[in-house]
C-alpha cells in the first residue's frame, strides 16, 4: 500500500501524458505484484517474520522498477522546440553518447535544407557530419555498409520523394541482410530520415508519402511522429533499435509544431500506438500531420453530432500496433483511417483488412478510409486532393447512420 501511494504520487513529476499514465500503471502493477508475492509467501511460509523482509524487498523492487521507468520517460528541464529543433536535439544526443554515430546526406553539413542538422558539424567535426554528392542510391548503399561494419549510420534523404533511386538498396539489401546471412550480419545500425508529406505548395515531387511502398517489405521499421516530443523520442528509439528504420518527418510541421521538449535523451517505444483521446463511438486512426486533422474532426463530431471519437496515433507503421487498434474497434465498433497517400494500396488498406479479420462481428459499419485520391500529388489542386476535416466528418456521419 505504501509503495503504491509513493509511486503514484511520484508520477506527476515527470512530464508527458504517456509517462504519467505508464508510471501509474506501473505503480498499480508493482503493487499488485507485491501483494501477490505477499500472499504467495504467506501461503508457503506461514511464519510472520519473513513477510517483513519480503515487504522491504518488494518496496525496493518497486523503486528499482520506478527508476528504470523514469530513465525511459521524458523528464528534466525542457525547452521550447519546433520539430526540426527536436530532431537536432535527438541527433545531438546521439552524437554525444555514441562515438560511432555519423550523419550524412545532401547538404547536411551546413545544417540541412530544413535545418535539422544545424550546428552539429561544428560541434562534432566534419568526419562525423558530412555531405554526400547527389546520389540517393549511393547514400543508402553507403549507409548500409557503414551500419554493417558496426557504426551507427544516420542517412538523410532530402525529400521522401527522392527515396526511390534507393528503393532497391532499402528493400533488397537493408531489409534482408539479417535474414539472408542467418543473423551473422545485420544493418540494424542504419536509420534513414526523410521529410515527408504535403506542405501546401510541394506539387508532385515535394509532397509524397511513400510509407506504403516500404510497409510491404518485412525487415524494415517505419516510424512517423506527429510532433516535436514524439519526434525526438521516436527518432532516438529508431537509432537505438537493432533493425533498419525509416523515419519520416512531416515537413509541414517543421516550423509549425512547437512544444516543450526535454533536453535530455528519452525514448518512446516503437510499435506502440498512442491513444490521444478516448471515445466510445468511433475510432479514428492516422499518423503524422493527419492526426491533427483527426483531432479537429473528433471535436467537430462531438459538437455537431454528439459522437464520441477515440483518436489513435499509430506512430509506427511497420510493425504496427494491431492490439491497440483492435481493442479500440471492439469497444467502438466503427473505424476510420485517414492518410494523405493515395487510397489504393495505401496503408489504410492493410489496417482495414486486419481489423475486419480480427473484429468482424464487432463492426457496426464498414471501415472507412479517407485518403488522397488515386492521382499524382497535384500542384494546383492540392486543397481538393488532401483528406481534409470535412471529408472525414462526412465519413463519420455515414458510419453513424449506417
Amino acid at each position: 500500500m505504501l509503495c503504491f501511494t509513493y509511486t503514484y504520487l511520484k508520477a506527476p513529476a515527470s512530464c508527458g501524458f504517456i509517462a504519467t499514465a505508464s508510471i501509474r500503471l506501473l505503480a498499480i502493477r508493482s503493487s499488485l505484484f507485491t501483494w501477490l508475492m505477499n500472499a504467495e509467501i504467506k501461503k508457503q511460509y506461514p511464519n510472520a517474520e519473513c513477510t517483513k523482509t519480503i515487504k522491504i524487498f518488494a518496496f525496493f523492487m518497486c523503486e528499482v522498477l520506478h527508476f528504470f521507468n523514469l530513465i525511459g520517460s521524458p523528464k528534466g528541464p525542457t525547452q521550447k522546440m519546433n520539430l526540426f529543433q527536436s530532431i537536432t536535439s535527438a541527433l545531438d544526443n546521439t552524437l554525444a553518447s555514441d562515438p560511432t554515430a555519423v550523419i550524412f546526406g545532401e547538404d547536411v553539413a551546413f545544417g540541412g535544407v530544413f535545418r535539422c542538422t544545424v550546428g552539429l558539424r561544428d560541434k562534432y567535426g566534419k568526419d562525423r557530419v558530412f555531405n554526400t554528392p547527389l546520389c540517393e542510391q549511393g547514400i543508402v548503399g553507403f549507409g548500409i555498409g557503414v551500419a554493417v561494419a558496426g557504426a551507427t549510420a544516420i542517412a538523410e534523404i532530402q525529400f521522401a520523394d527522392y527515396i526511390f533511386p534507393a528503393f532497391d538498396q532499402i528493400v533488397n539489401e537493408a531489409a534482408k541482410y539479417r535474414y539472408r546471412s542467418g543473423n551473422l550480419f545485420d544493418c540494424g545500425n542504419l536509420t534513414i530520415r526523410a521529410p515527408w508529406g504535403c506542405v501546401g505548395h510541394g506539387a508532385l515531387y515535394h509532397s509524397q508519402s511513400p510509407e506504403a511502398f516500404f510497409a510491404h517489405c518485412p525487415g524494415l521499421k517505419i516510424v512517423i511522429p506527429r510532433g516535436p516530443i514524439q519526434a525526438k523520442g521516436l527518432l532516438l528509439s529508431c537509432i537505438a533499435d537493432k533493425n533498419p528504420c525509416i523515419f519520416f518527418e512531416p515537413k509541414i510541421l517543421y516550423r509549425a509544431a512547437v512544444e516543450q521538449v526535454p533536453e535530455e535523451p528519452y525514448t518512446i517505444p516503437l510499435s506502440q500506438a498512442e491513444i490521444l483521446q478516448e471515445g466510445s463511438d468511433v475510432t479514428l486512426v492516422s499518423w503524422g500531420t493527419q492526426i491533427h486533422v483527426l483531432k479537429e474532426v473528433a471535436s467537430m463530431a462531438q459538437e455537431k453530432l454528439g459522437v464520441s471519437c477515440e483518436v489513435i496515433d499509430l506512430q509506427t507503421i511497420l510493425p504496427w500496433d494491431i492490439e491497440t487498434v483492435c481493442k479500440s474497434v471492439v469497444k467502438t465498433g466503427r473505424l476510420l483511417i485517414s492518410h494523405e497517400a493515395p487510397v489504393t494500396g495505401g496503408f489504410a488498406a492493410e489496417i482495414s483488412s486486419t481489423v475486419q479479420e480480427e473484429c468482424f462481428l464487432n463492426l457496426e459499419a464498414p471501415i472507412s478510409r479517407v485518403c488522397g485520391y488515386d492521382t499524382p500529388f497535384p500542384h494546383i489542386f492540392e486543397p481538393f486532393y488532401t483528406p481534409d476535416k470535412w471529408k472525414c466528418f462526412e465519413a463519420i456521419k455515414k458510419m453513424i447512420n449506417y
Partner: protein
Amino acid sequence: MKTMLAIISNALCRMTGRNAGAQTVSEGARVVVSRSFADFTPQATFDIKKCDLHRLEEGPPVKAELTREQGLQYYRTMQTVRRMELKADQLYKQKIIRGFCHLYDGQEACAAGIEAAINPSDHLITAYRAHGYTYTRGVSVKEILAELTGRRGGVAKGKGGSMHMYAPHFYGGNGIVGAQVPLGAGIALACQYQGNNQVCVTLYGDGAANQGQLFESYNMAALWKLPCIFICENNKYGMGTSVERAAASTDYYKRGDFIPGLRVDGMDVLCVREATQFAADHCRAGKGPIIMELQTYRYHGHSMSDPGVSYRTREEIQEVRSKSDPISMLKERMLSHNMASVEEFKEIDIEIRKQVEEATQFATSDPEPPLEELCNHIFSKNPPLEMSK
C-alpha cells in the same frame, strides 16, 4: 521639335533618295533616327574560345560567323528569357507563383546557342531549370507564365507547374535529378531506330553528374552508338554545394570516359552554337554519343527559396554579371562591329518588356483549371474515378 526633325529627316531622305512617306515617327515624343540598313555590317567573324577536348582529334572552329539577323535574333531570344525569368521572380515574391521555381537567368546563352545549332525536329530534354528551353523550343511567354501561375492557359494546362513544361520535341521539365538522362538516351534510340537523322540533346547539371543512372546511360549510348548529345550545364553549384565539394573529378566533359567530350564557354552564345553544331554533326554522322560541358553561371539561387549568397559571395555574382554576362557580350560584339545600333537594341528591349507584361496580364487573369482536371490524364482512357472519397 517633332516637326523640325521631320523636316530634317525629309531633307535627308531627298538626299539619299528614299521614300519620305516610309519614315515614321514613333508615338510619345520618342524619335527614332532612321539609318539606312546599308550602314550596318551584315556579317562579321568573331574569335571564340577554343574548346577543351577529350578523345577528339579536332574540335569546333575557333572562329564563328554571325549575321546581323542572327545576332538580333539571339539577342531577342536571350533578352526574352531574361525578362521572363525576372518577371517570374517578381511574381513569386508577390506569391502569385507558388511552389518551386528555378530560374535560368545568367545561363541564357546555353539555351539560345543550342537552339541555334539544332533543328526544330531534333529533340531536347532537360531538368527542372527549364523555362529557357521551353521558350526556345517554341512555347510562348504567355503560356509559360500561365503554367507558373497554375492557370488553364498554361502549357501543361496548369497541372505541371514550373518544373513540368513540355512542347513538341521538348520532353520537359523533370523534377527528379538525373532521371531525364536515361530518357534522353531512349529518345536517341528512337531516332536511330526510325532513321530520321534527328538527334536528342540531353541536358543535366553538375549536381546530377554524380547520379548513377547517368553512367548507365553513357554505357548504353556508347554501346549502341546512339545520336545523343549529353550536355552538362555546369553552373558551379549543385544547389548550395560547389563542384569541388561534390565531385571527385570536376572535368565533367571527361566523365563519359569512353565517350568523346568538349568543354565549352557557356556564357558565349557563339561558342555554344559552334560546339553544338559540331556535336550534332558528330552524332548525325553515326559516330555515337558525345558529351559537352557548358561552363555557365546562374545569378539567382538554386530556387526562389535560396537567396544564393550563403555559399557564394555577392562579389562573385557581380563579377560574372559585369564581365561575362551573355547578353551584354553579344550586344557589345555587335555594336563594336557596327552590326546594329543602340537604339535598335533599346527598341527590342521595349518590345520584349511589353510582351512580358501582356503575358503577365494573361497569366494572372486566366482562370484556374477546372476540378475535372484533377483526375484527368492519369491513364490513357480514364475510367471514372470515385470522387466521393
